[in-house]
């Protein structure tokens, strides 16, 4: 084969630079073409990175759109505190859709297993509709899951919030088409092409702050379905489940009632990256009970209007 000369200095961009530029391009298209965008913000690392990119895309202006949090009432306290600190730091408007309020009003019923992940969908769709958002940014990545691998960067949802994989728009070049029918809306996923490793490398490079539960800490846990679950008011051990104190961290931030921790001594970003390099489990497989129900769990939830 032919040995090729390296490109001139300054033109071979790093993976992170290329991904960052693509994401900012997408964010600017969406901000310009839609009337009322919002950012779905869970306090998880992916939504934190999207917010960071959003701030860069409009700098030196402030982030011009509200952040939307669907609060299940089962969030980790550390994450809610982090969310509030971020809102203050960027000077953002926060819109909260509360699953607890729906339950209190009798509009949603607790599921038999006590988890609330699936209950979010109704609250999410109502929050989008009542605030008149025609697009919401999300931090979903295609490497997370087989269904996500096929989702477009601009993903159309009908009036019921349903994603139809058979009826997706082709996305060609860097030309994004966000036009949609009046009662539809769009989910925009500007970090679709980032992997878990890219996210962590970027967090390191940009020195981005995260909720503390992403890093190793001592916590009371019990083992269930092969995962370490925190002892919290919403996640209690059964009588046969032994509570121990372990050094753990979280790879994803979800509800305390369905997110497992991994045993880890990684107390900073570099150590997390080192662990990732040798990890043999996918991020969702390792820590999300809600994706374990069936191989098509994510696909099913997306077709109900989930994130």
């Amino acid at each position, binding site marked *: *084969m032919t040995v*090729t000369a390296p*490109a001139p200095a*300054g*033109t*071979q*961009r*790093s993976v992170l*630079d290329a*991904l*960052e*530029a*693509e994401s*900012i*391009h997408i964010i*600017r*298209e969406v*901000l*310009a073409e839609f009337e009322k965008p919002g950012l779905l913000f869970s306090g998880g690392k992916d939504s934190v990175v999207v917010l960071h990119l959003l*701030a860069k*895309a*409009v*700098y*030196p*202006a*402030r*982030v*011009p759109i509200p952040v939307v949090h669907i609060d299940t009432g089962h969030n980790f306290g550390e994450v809610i505190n982090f969310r509030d600190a971020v809102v203050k730091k*960027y000077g953002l408007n926060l819109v909260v859709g509360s699953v607890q309020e729906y339950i209190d009003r009798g509009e949603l019923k607790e599921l038999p297993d006590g988890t609330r992940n699936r209950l979010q969908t109704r609250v999410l769709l109502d929050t989008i509709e009542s605030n008149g958002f025609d697009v919401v940014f999300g931090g979903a990545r*295609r490497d997370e899951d*087989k*269904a996500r*691998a*096929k989702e477009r960067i601009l993903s159309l949802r009908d009036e019921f919030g349903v994603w139809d*994989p*058979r009826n*997706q*728009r*082709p996305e*060609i*070049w*860097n*030309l994004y*088409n966000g*036009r949609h*029918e009046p009662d539809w809306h769009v989910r925009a996923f500007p970090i*679709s*092409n980032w*992997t878990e490793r*890219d996210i962590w*490398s970027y967090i390191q490079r940009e020195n981005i702050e995260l909720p503390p539960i992403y890093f190793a800490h001592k916590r009371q846990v019990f083992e269930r379905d092969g995962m370490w679950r925190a002892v919290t008011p919403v996640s209690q051990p059964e009588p046969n489940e032994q509570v121990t104190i372990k050094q753990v961290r979280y790879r994803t931030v979800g509800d305390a009632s369905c997110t497992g921790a991994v045993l880890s001594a990684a107390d900073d970003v570099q150590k997390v990256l080192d662990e990732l390099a040798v*990890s*043999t*489990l*996918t991020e969702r*497989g*390792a820590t999300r009970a809600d994706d374990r129900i069936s*191989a*098509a769990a994510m*696909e099913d939830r997306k077709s109900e209007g989930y994130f």
Partner: protein
Amino acid sequence: MSTTLLRIATAGSVDDGKSTLVGRLLHDAKAILADSLDDLARTSAERGFGGEAGALDLALVTDGLRAEREQGITIDVAYRYFSTEKRSFILADCPGHVQYTRNTVTGASTADAAIVLVDARNGVLEQTRRHLGVLALLRVPQLIVAVNKMDLVNWDEARFTQIESEIHVLAAELDLHATTVIPVSALDGDNVVEPSANADWYAGPTLLGLLEDLTLAQPAGAARLDVQYVIRPQGGLAPGLDAEYYRDYRGYAGTLVDGSLSVGDPVQILSNGYPAHSTVKAIGTPAGLVHTAHAGEAIVLELADEVDIARGDTVVAGILPEAVREFDADICVLAPVKLAEGQRVLIKHGAKVAAAKVAQIEHVLNVADYSREAAATLALNDLGRITVRSSAAVSVADYRDSRTGGSFLLIDPATGRTLAAGIIQAHDEAA
């Protein structure tokens, strides 16, 4: 990380073993983690794949949706991610059977390299010509043809050489310059990641080796930036910044798609066909202010003069693109519609959206023999040549010089649906 990103698209049908090849690439490049491998082993067993225990149906790696698993087909382009010591890869896996052209166009439009599968037993088929035709139209910079199932022709060198020379004839006909042909067996893994022990006559690279060492050509032409978003922070400045300093700030945000641009460079701004002149005062990037920005960077330009610039305007340095209201283009129809002469559409070119019309349909391309035929309408998956008439001037460039300046979408004004992808390039009219 100092590695670079390579975007790849695959084209070919299930019968060519494309899914198996992609699965093999990901598996052998160790991009499939243990829990996904467990899923794969379980599903392989359920489907009764192979005879021996633990045999993996690697085609299942790219099966995404339940409907696909149930029907054994691939519905949509799937994106896969893997990396080696040398490089990170984004692989757009384009299904071959259903809406092949639409899918191939989608996956190949952003690709640095495309892999086309050929079954060693069948050689070059009409479908191969079809895929190569689309890839040639999109000018994917590097083409790799994987001659698969070499195990089923006993690694016959003569068979491979025959297919290879047919491919090179086709490539020449299509003006595809960088074409490499590799003999592989996706099922056994020969020449995918590991070199084959069955073909001592083959001295070329493995598929992964080739992908790792491909050089990315940078878009070289004249600097071009389509203004996406005008940043005026008055009243809404990011926290912590000095309001006095930014009082008159106006930044033009967009992606520099070609060339490079430096502070002090004279630029022209094309606004609906009328050029204005200014000089680059400052260039902001995600990492802060820089003296020079390069193609591919998302930047913010400040100009020395007060010029009226809006989203959709184009900032260029050097050669001025043509600002036209009527132009010819090759399009690929991407929606189940029939495009007819006189049809009203929207055109999206760069960051500009304007009302437009399909003024004329010149021909449809017969992808089997690349001949041109008269047509009254263009339907889904058709490749054809049309004349577009736009309500606003469009700053077009030849697609060969500028992937962005030479490409556009046609959109249905009523439903918002993407109807077609278009490419603007001068044709050899004698052909």
